[in-house]
């Protein structure tokens, strides 16, 4: 009897181990371009990863069907960074050294990204960031072997200030997760709001532990001074929990909420999402009208039977820029591709974009709108009346970037 149980345990363990090993690599073929994906697969990163990986796979499929890049086939090798910077750094090293990857694809977590970018610099391998978006990657922690195709935390904070200051609100409140991402956004938001609206009053600032899903202790504090507008830096599941709980506390009757309503968050919240909330999205496929996006959405939907989340579209955009640069450089040599990347104009799913040479930041803006039901999507709400806030209005100026980059050295 005892032995049987042990056998069952061993089988279960093997299954678990097998689950983690599925992604490990095949043998390297010589005539391929190997992309090493430092991904956050487990934990709260899982939702993000699903979209990112599906988009990367789709891109590779298409590129290979069209004869590859410089005649070489693309392939992707994935490692799980588990949202942990030290593991992320190790995985990046492993992808470069053992798996002989030529380029790296970034993770979801900014903390992992900051660790991975150092490894990329050390081995002179280009890494691009599509979801992790701390501004530090392009300023204080800038290194030339990276580029970013996601609107960064600074843009998000300043974008929030810009959008909200144009409305007649005077009394503001802030609530967000108590870690770098929240603090980065808040700092940018506070600075910009002060600049744009001298009489704006930031009344209450509430920090909540990352991952906390019970907001009963925090919501009454947030509302205690009757703010007219609230900026929240929550995202994903935590934001979904916050919105669900804020509703019966009457938050939305009293104040306007502005937050990141990406497609995954909207899908999770479903019809529990109130209408009429202010929000932004990093790359909402449904609000971007151009032939590239339309074609991408169709292919993505046909293949995955699911709409592409923001992260999916941005991961795809990064590969457009990377492969364009490889073609332009006519080489996979990192230094030559970096040279090609600087100032590169590429046809992204979001329209024509370019990579700023000074900080390797793509000029990608954010998309603001109001939550509403939409007959195209039965199970969840999306943003309507979406307007793009162009990057030029909310990116740091080249001088500011250079100053920050110099500070570190």
């Amino acid at each position, binding site marked *: 009897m*005892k032995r049987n149980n042990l056998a069952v345990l061993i089988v279960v363990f093997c299954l*678990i181990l097998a689950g983690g090993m599925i992604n490990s690599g095949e043998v390297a073929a010589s005539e391929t371009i190997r992309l090493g994906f430092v991904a956050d697969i487990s934990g*709260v990163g899982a939702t993000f990863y699903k979209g990112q990986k599906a988009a990367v796979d789709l891109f590779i499929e298409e590129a290979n069907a069209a004869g590859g890049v410089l005649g070489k086939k693309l392939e992707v090798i994935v490692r799980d960074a588990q949202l942990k910077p030290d593991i992320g750094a190790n995985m990046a090293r492993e992808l470069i050294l053992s798996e002989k990857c030529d380029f790296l694809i970034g993770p979801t977590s900014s903390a992992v990204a900051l660790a991975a970018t150092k490894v990329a610099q050390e081995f002179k391998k280009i890494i691009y960031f599509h979801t992790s978006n701390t501004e530090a990657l392009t300023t204080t922690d800038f290194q030339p072997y990276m580029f970013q195709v996601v609107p960064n935390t600074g843009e998000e904070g300043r974008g929030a200030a810009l959008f909200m200051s144009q409305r007649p609100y005077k009394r503001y409140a802030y609530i967000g997760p108590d870690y770098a991402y929240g603090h980065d956004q808040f700092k940018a938001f506070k600075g910009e709001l002060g600049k744009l609206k001298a009489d704006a009053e930031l009344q209450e600032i509430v920090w909540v532990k990352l991952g906390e899903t019970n*907001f009963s202790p925090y919501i009454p*504090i947030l509302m205690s001074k009757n703010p007219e507008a609230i900026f929240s830096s929550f995202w994903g599941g935590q934001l*979904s*929990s916050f919105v669900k709980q804020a509703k*019966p506390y009457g938050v939305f009757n009293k104040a306007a909420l502005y937050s990141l309503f990406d497609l995954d968050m909207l899908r999770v919240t479903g019809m529990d999402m109130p209408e009429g909330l202010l929000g932004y999205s990093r790359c909402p496929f449904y609000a971007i009208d151009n032939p590239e996006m339309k074609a991408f959405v169709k292919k993505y939907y046909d293949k995955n039977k699911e709409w592409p989340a923001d992260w999916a579209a941005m991961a795809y955009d990064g590969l457009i820029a990377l492969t364009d640069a490889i073609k332009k450089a006519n080489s996979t040599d990192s230094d030559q591709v970096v040279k090609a990347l600087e100032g590169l104009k590429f046809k992204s799913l979001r329209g024509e974009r370019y990579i700023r040479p000074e900080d390797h930041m793509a000029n990608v803006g954010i998309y603001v709108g109001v939550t509403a039901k939409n007959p195209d999507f039965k199970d969840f709400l999306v943003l309507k009346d979406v307007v793009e806030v162009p990057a030029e209005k909310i990116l740091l100026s080249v001088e500011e970037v250079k100053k920050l980059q110099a500070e570190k050295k």
Partner: protein
Amino acid sequence: MSAEYYLFMLINGLSQGMLLFIVASGLSLVFGVLRVINFAHGSIYMIGAFVAYSLSTLLTGTSLASFLLLLLVVPPAIALLGFVLEVSLFRRVYREEHLLQLLLTYALVLILDNVVRMIWGGDPRNVARPEILAGSVDLMGMALPTYNVFILLVGPVIALGLWLLLYRTRAGNVIRAAVSYPDILGALGVNVSWVMTATFMLGCWLAGLGGVLVAALANVDLSIGMEKIIECFAVVVIGGLGSVGGALLGSLIIGVGITFFQLPFGRWALVFPYFVMALVLIIRPWGLFGRPER
């Protein structure tokens, strides 16, 4: 800030404490009878929440009836899971030292969490509240979510139910005897091992109930189990391992503490449970309602 505001936060905090109590009482009860510190209690609670989610997708609408059905069906299902775990695993380690038991339950955490990951994946899940509980009630001009009021009512019902069960029924007498005099109970011809199985199932039933209740409160994801077990440990250390009354007191102290101390201390209020826990450990290491280890 007005006195009404403080009262509002107090009531709000009590509702938090009640939810915590439902889960922590299960942990405490299991320890009292089985003498095993069940690290996996949080994972069992999480499974309850995920099962509630899955079942809710099968039911249509957000009526009170379908929510009550969840409350009725899911906790027994989790108790059944408890039965399997107790008979196949826990039963084998009662006579072992605490360290080994802890290793077993911790291994169980890793296994159950991965099983949940395989079945439900890493996406956060949302269970809609029944319409009748989705609104709010007016409390001195402030809106208090009806659902919090609901939890505030369910908590005492469970507490009273547990008290009646333990002190007013024969089964309760046997359970209490199993806590204090397991050897004599065995000598009297009571099948102690089935008492233990039943108690473990009751503990899991409570974890499952907590899971259903939290699923409609917040999103369900892979982290809620670990989150809750840490809070539960603080509760049982404060209240005393094995004491259901202690679990009630400990839960209310922590629920009210975290909520209420947000007012003067902001995010430092999170330190409060651990502060009380440390204080209790210094002054009365066996907890406010507990008894020293024999």
